[in-house]
């Protein structure tokens, strides 16, 4: 039997706050004004007479307008490219490496314009999955805030003139520096090196916003390549490797290899996580302990001592347990740390070495972080001192995203550097302080190569003609260095060496087609300017580290990341997996501390450290370590574009340099300001009947004992005794002759990363609604990921310990709850409650098991949404594509430029209609048609929904349940009676979406083991 832990959706539910009770009782959102997005007065309600007048006018206008149909033009290509056919999508392999997040991608283009990114299944590094940020990158291509031409002092300048001036300025500049984030392109590096050589040994400085400098230094200047699939015991120390740390898509893919269970394979890896903030990785861990950043050193020392010395660890129970497990696992153990502290990283490297971990490969390192904090800090100091003659910022925005950015900005404004050139794609915080701007192409307009890991190459190719008068940065470098070649030719030349003898044209075509190749081209990264620490001094440093007061841990969010892509509304509106907050950052505080300070969620506090302060609202975060707070980077942009500007606050100035690296943890002063600022959370908006029926979880021990016992199946009382709910039915069953589409979602593999949410948004033209509308509970995402916190009280406790004590006990683990993610979308019920209540038959059932939503028939009664037990239907309260209130956040639907991102096969829904997940019916129809054209049945795996396609861990399996050989059918057969369950099965709506019970690698469902 399950232990039936109680799950709650958020702090509000746990506390039974008045707001929550009100919402829970009413179930449906109470009336919110539509005329104004916020604030309501009687005057704002349209009087009836106005309504009649408008209706009369509307009728007359409609009649008049329909008298003459507008003339529509059909404009063919002037010279049709052979491989492009209107309405047939082409896929091109490319590579995404923006914001230091690597992903091999396939770009789906229609009529020559990219409309969606998908993971490149041939990539050995990232596979077919894709991160949320990479999914959203297609929207950034059409970002109107991109700089559309070259500028000097913000004024348009001709390319030739800029080249001339820059060449002259660089020739007499003296010391030239190039600042960039990590560059993993071998050819680009070579171009930069040649450019540097041409200008008196110009210095190329790389830095990473979310720096891994300490990790690099501790490993002799390289970033080890990790393979989580080779680890049975994983200990994460503040490393959010599933969410934001180094290469999350790659790691997530490896991580789930040992997390997928079946009755044949009842073993899982064990994952310990020690961290300050509640991270995505921590929420997936089997054992998690929250600790202050200053305590982490001690924990690592304890771990190190236990593993090297053999004695018991001196730290907490969980640390001791982790140490014991690691020792047992030996080379199948792995310790990773996201800390940018030299001491910690030195010890972690030593631990892995001691274990002989097979999961760490320093011989074939990863290249995605090469930044050297010390070098960057020295350069900024030199710039401030006026010792640099010219600086080129190549995709680097240190004024915003470096802790010393403010001083740097002032130095640039004061003209401490004579020649400053920005190659950034927009006039951002750094770019607008530069003399020249020579904007780079978007990566989808460029040729480039990449080497994320030694031996693994990938390629980017242009998939659209440059939208603006920009120039690829590498071409700018080549031009300024006086090279006559173009970067494309340069690249080909480089690859001629790589691909070796033989037919180069053919080999090149293959590489461009596949997008990935094997081989190595990157030179060994330059050594860090400060050397590694030895273990003893690391231990000494960590022992000397005494924290005090409230400690701040700066973290990165999955959506906006380091802020490079902040102007992307899809990412801004992507709910944070843990806090479910959108549009902005906030201070995450532990509940006990908030209660002590009498703060409520949304109270604005002032956090001061390092001579800087930020004012942000408070968000009560379960799992936040006592005595700590967390703030995300990437927000507080000033010059990113109208979407991102002035959203949240920039926390990076609060970070300081320590031991030559940026320290993302620091002691802070915190004080209330007395003001309030609401946080737009999607959290408790969708109150569902009863938790136990929705998510199911069991421990690995239970699963090993009997897989048939881990899932609780609801029974209903009938005259013949208890029966499965689907034995009793009011409705006739459908007969599926042709196909029966469905999905299975493995809660064990789902890490909650949100990639599917953005993938669905891109595929289905889902509108962005903005902060206020999210607060109004009107977000439009067809797919959401529900996050449940648990407490460890069980039903039996009520009898054993008494009700009051149990209720009290239920609150205890809220300091460190276990977390479950559950992707939730239309369940395509076979007995759908929505279908029976629609007065106009706008939502009907198809002969293939789909719950169809017909927009042109919908009159907007919203009965269906009210009758939906899963609350997955979304109502279009506004014309999100014409209403000026949404012009900022949903701007891509307003301009011709932005509209190019829309999927032409999916209708943009009008105001007043209901919409919801269609199970990507456009993809189903296309797949069927392709099969029919080839006179065969569709092959399994040929048709996948956008969410299943984008999932890095393949938690979502889409398929035809009528095909007994499909992956889905096999999975359902295997898991039937074991882990497979339907959400809310007792109401007998018979969904076509099946969930698989989550299994935690613990003995009991309790974190206090």
């Amino acid at each position, binding site marked *: 039997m399950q232990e039936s832990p109680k799950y709650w959706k958020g702090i509000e539910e746990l506390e039974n706050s008045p707001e929550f009770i009100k919402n829970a009782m009413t179930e449906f959102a109470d009336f919110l004004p539509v005329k104004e997005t916020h604030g309501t007065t009687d005057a704002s309600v349209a009087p009836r007479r106005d309504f009649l007048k408008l209706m009369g006018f509307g009728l007359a206008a409609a009649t008049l307008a329909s008298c003459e149909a507008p003339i529509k033009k059909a404009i063919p290509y002037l010279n049709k490219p052979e491989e492009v056919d209107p309405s*047939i999508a082409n896929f091109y392999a490319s590579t995404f490496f923006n914001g230091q997040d690597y992903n091999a991608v396939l770009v789906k283009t229609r009529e020559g314009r990219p409309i969606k990114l998908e993971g490149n299944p041939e990539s050995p590094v990232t596979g077919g999955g894709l991160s949320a940020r990479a999914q959203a990158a297609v929207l950034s291509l059409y970002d109107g805030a991109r700089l559309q031409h070259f500028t000097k002092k913000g004024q348009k300048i001709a390319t030739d003139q800029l080249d001339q001036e820059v060449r002259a300025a660089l020739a007499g500049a003296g010391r030239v520096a190039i600042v960039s984030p990590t560059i993993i392109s071998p050819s680009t590096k070579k171009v930069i090196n040649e450019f540097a050589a041409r200008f008196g040994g110009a210095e190329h400085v790389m830095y990473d916003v979310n720096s891994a400098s300490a990790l690099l230094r501790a490993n002799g200047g390289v970033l080890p390549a990790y393979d989580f699939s080779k680890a049975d015991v994983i200990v994460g120390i503040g490393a959010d490797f599933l969410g934001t740390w180094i290469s999350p898509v790659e790691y997530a893919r490896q991580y789930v290899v040992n997390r997928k269970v079946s009755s044949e394979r009842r073993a899982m890896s064990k994952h310990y996580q020690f961290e300050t903030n509640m991270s995505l990785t921590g929420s997936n861990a089997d054992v998690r302990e929250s600790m202050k950043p200053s305590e982490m050193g001690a924990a690592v020392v304890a771990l190190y001592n236990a593993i090297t010395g053999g004695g018991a660890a001196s730290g907490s129970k969980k640390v001791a347990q982790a140490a014991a497990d690691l020792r047992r696992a030996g080379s199948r153990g792995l310790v990773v740390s996201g800390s940018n502290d030299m001491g910690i990283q030195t010890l972690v490297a030593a631990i892995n070495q001691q274990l002989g971990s097979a999961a760490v490969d320093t011989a074939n390192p990863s290249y995605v972080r090469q930044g050297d904090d010390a070098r960057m800090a020295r350069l900024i100091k030199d710039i401030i001192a006026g010792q640099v003659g010219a600086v080129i910022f190549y995709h680097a925005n240190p004024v915003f995203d470096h802790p010393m950015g403010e001083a740097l900005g002032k130095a640039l404004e004061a003209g401490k550097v004579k020649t400053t050139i920005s190659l950034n794609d927009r006039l951002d915080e750094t770019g607008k302080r530069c003399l020249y701007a020579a904007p780079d192409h978007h990566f989808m307009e460029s040729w480039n190569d990449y080497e994320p890991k030694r031996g693994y190459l990938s390629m980017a190719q242009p998939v659209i003609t440059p939208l603006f008068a920009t120039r690829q940065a590498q071409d700018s470098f080549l031009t300024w260095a006086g090279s006559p070649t173009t970067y494309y030719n340069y690249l080909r030349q480089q690859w001629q060496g790589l691909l070796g003898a033989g037919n180069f044209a053919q080999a090149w075509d293959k590489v461009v087609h596949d997008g990935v190749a094997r081989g190595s081209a990157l030179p060994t990264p330059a050594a860090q300017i400060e050397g590694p620490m030895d273990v003893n001094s690391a231990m000494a440093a960590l022992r000397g580290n005494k924290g005090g007061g409230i400690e701040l841990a700066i973290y990165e969010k999955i959506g906006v990341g380091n802020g490079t892509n902040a102007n992307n509304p899809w990412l801004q509106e992507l709910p944070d997996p843990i806090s479910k907050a959108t549009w902005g950052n906030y201070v995450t505080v532990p509940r006990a501390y908030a209660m002590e300070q009498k703060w409520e969620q949304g109270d604005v506090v002032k956090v001061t450290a390092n001579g800087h302060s930020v004012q942000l609202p408070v968000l009560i975060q379960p799992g936040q370590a006592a005595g700590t707070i967390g703030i995300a980077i990437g927000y507080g942009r000033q010059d990113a574009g109208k979407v991102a500007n002035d959203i949240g606050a920039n926390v990076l100035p609060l970070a300081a340099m320590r031991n030559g690296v940026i320290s993302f943890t620091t002691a802070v002063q915190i004080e209330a300001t007395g003001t309030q600022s609401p946080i737009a959370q999607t959290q408790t908006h969708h109150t569902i009947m009863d938790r136990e029926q929705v998510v199911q979880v069991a421990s690995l021990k239970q699963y090993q004992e009997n897989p048939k016992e881990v899932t609780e199946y609801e029974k209903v009382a009938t005259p013949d005794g208890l029966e499965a709910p689907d034995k009793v039915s009011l409705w006739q069953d459908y007969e599926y002759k042709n196909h029966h589409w469905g999905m299975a979602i493995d809660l064990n593999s789902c890490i909650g990363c949100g990639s599917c949410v953005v993938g669905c948004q891109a595929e289905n033209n889902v509108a962005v609604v903005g902060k206020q509308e999210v607060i109004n509970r009107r977000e439009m995402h067809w797919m959401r990921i529900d996050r449940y916190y648990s407490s460890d009280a069980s039903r039996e406790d009520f009898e054993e310990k008494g009700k009051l004590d149990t209720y009290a006990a239920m609150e205890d683990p809220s300091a460190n709850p276990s977390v479950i993610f559950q992707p939730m979308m239309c369940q395509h019920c076979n007995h759908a409650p929505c279908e029976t209540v629609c007065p106009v038959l706008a939502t009907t059932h198809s002969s293939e098991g789909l719950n169809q939503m017909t927009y042109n028939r919908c009159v907007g009664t919203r009965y269906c949404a009210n009758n939906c037990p899963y609350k997955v239907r979304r109502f279009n309260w506004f014309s999100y594509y014409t209403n000026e209130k949404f012009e900022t956040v949903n701007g891509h639907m307003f301009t011709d430029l932005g509209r190019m991102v829309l999927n032409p096969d999916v209708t943009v829904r009008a105001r007043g209609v209901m919409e919801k997940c269609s199970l990507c019916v456009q993809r189903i129809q296309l797949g069927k048609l392709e099969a*029919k054209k080839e006179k065969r049945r569709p092959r399994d795996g040929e048709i996948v929904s956008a969410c299943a396609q984008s999932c890095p861990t393949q938690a979502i399996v889409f398929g035809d349940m009528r095909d007994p050989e499909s992956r889905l059918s096999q999975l359902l057969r295997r898991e039937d009676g074991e882990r497979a369950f339907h959400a809310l099965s007792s109401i007998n709506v018979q969904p076509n979406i099946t969930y698989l019970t989550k299994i935690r690698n613990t003995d009991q469902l309790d974190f206090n083991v």
Partner: protein
Amino acid sequence: MDSIRLRSLSRLFLALLLFFVSFGSAVAQGAATAAGEVGSSKNPSEVGVTPGTVAAAAPAAAAGATTADPAAIAAGDALFKGNCAQCHAVNDVVVGPALGGITKRRPMSWIIPWIKNSSKLVASGDDYAVKIYNQYQKQQMPSFQLSDAEITSIVAYITSEEGKTTVPTGIAAGAGATTVVDGTDAANGEASSSMNILLIVLVVVLIVLVVTLVIIANIMKDVLRGRKDLDGRDVEQMEQRFDFSKIYKSTAVRGIVGAVFVLAVLYETIQGAMGVGLTQGYQPTQPIAFSHKLHAGENQINCAYCHTSVYKAKSANIPSPNICMNCHSQIKTESPEIKKIYRAIERKQPIQWVRVHNLPDLAYFNHSQHTQVGGLECQTCHGPIQNMEVVYQYSALTMGWCINCHRETPLNTKGNGYYDNLVKLHDTKNGAVPFTVSSNGGTECSKCHY
């Protein structure tokens, strides 16, 4: 008495009126249904849904060196349509020679290298190749990346099609369809003209009758006036005139007129409202006076030659000028209309055709589903396109029109592995009813709306 008579009179009027109205509408409806039959039912059922594949499977062929394996013929059919039909027909000279009897003219060992790379063969000095090349205006046949087996299946298909009177390519079958349409049209026209003559004769007879009666009445009146023995009452009767104001004042008449008026207005309004957004017959002027009659009708160019993606994509794309240039770089280069194309190419300004067939954005329509899979001819929906100087919208393109066809049209399942099990399932359950598009879910909302 008076009132009773009046009532019966009014009833008579009403009956007469109703009779005329119903007669008129019946005539109109009859015409409409006749037209409808021609437009909808005949085309799809007799012409449209019989695809080339079915015809090819008929045992008419098998006279060549190649095997007549039906699977190979079916494969060859698809390949032929996809690759060859743009320039070749089996029994007709189009751009290239008619391919019927190719196996008798040339051995396979010649045909295969010729299809793979004709220019190589010409360059090698092969007599027959050079002869063909010169005979057809030195137009080079493009090279095809086809395997030997594929070429063999194409040849098998050609052999199976040899000598068939109904030419299997799209246009020709379409032309066949039009003769049917024309025929019925003519019959229909005849019927209506004889009806007209009858009506005219009737009207003339009536006029003659009335005139005769008036003349007789006048003569009789004159005769009576001549008589002196009439008393006052008789004179009064004789001089009595019909009082028209009585009719005008009669409530019955007023009521009838009012009702008719209201009904007429209502009818017109409803008709008008139903027609809102309907653009059947829409025939805009195009920037270039391109004639489908000349190209598709007289020159028999396959539709897919210009509308290249009609068998493979949602859109049946409008040809880009480079396709026009395949011929018009040589042909009719002096025509002012063709010069417009040259100008467009020179100025790099694409030609802005006016779209004739406009579906609302909320409706998804895919050409390849209907042409390649459904086996429909272009004419089924686009009408006698090969007779159109200027293209007009032939079909209503309303949802009712779509749905009707989906309800009536049997699925084109022959030889399509996708449908095999479905057909079996259908036949075992209710084989008596045809397996239509809608019985396979073809009228469900999200088949077209998403």
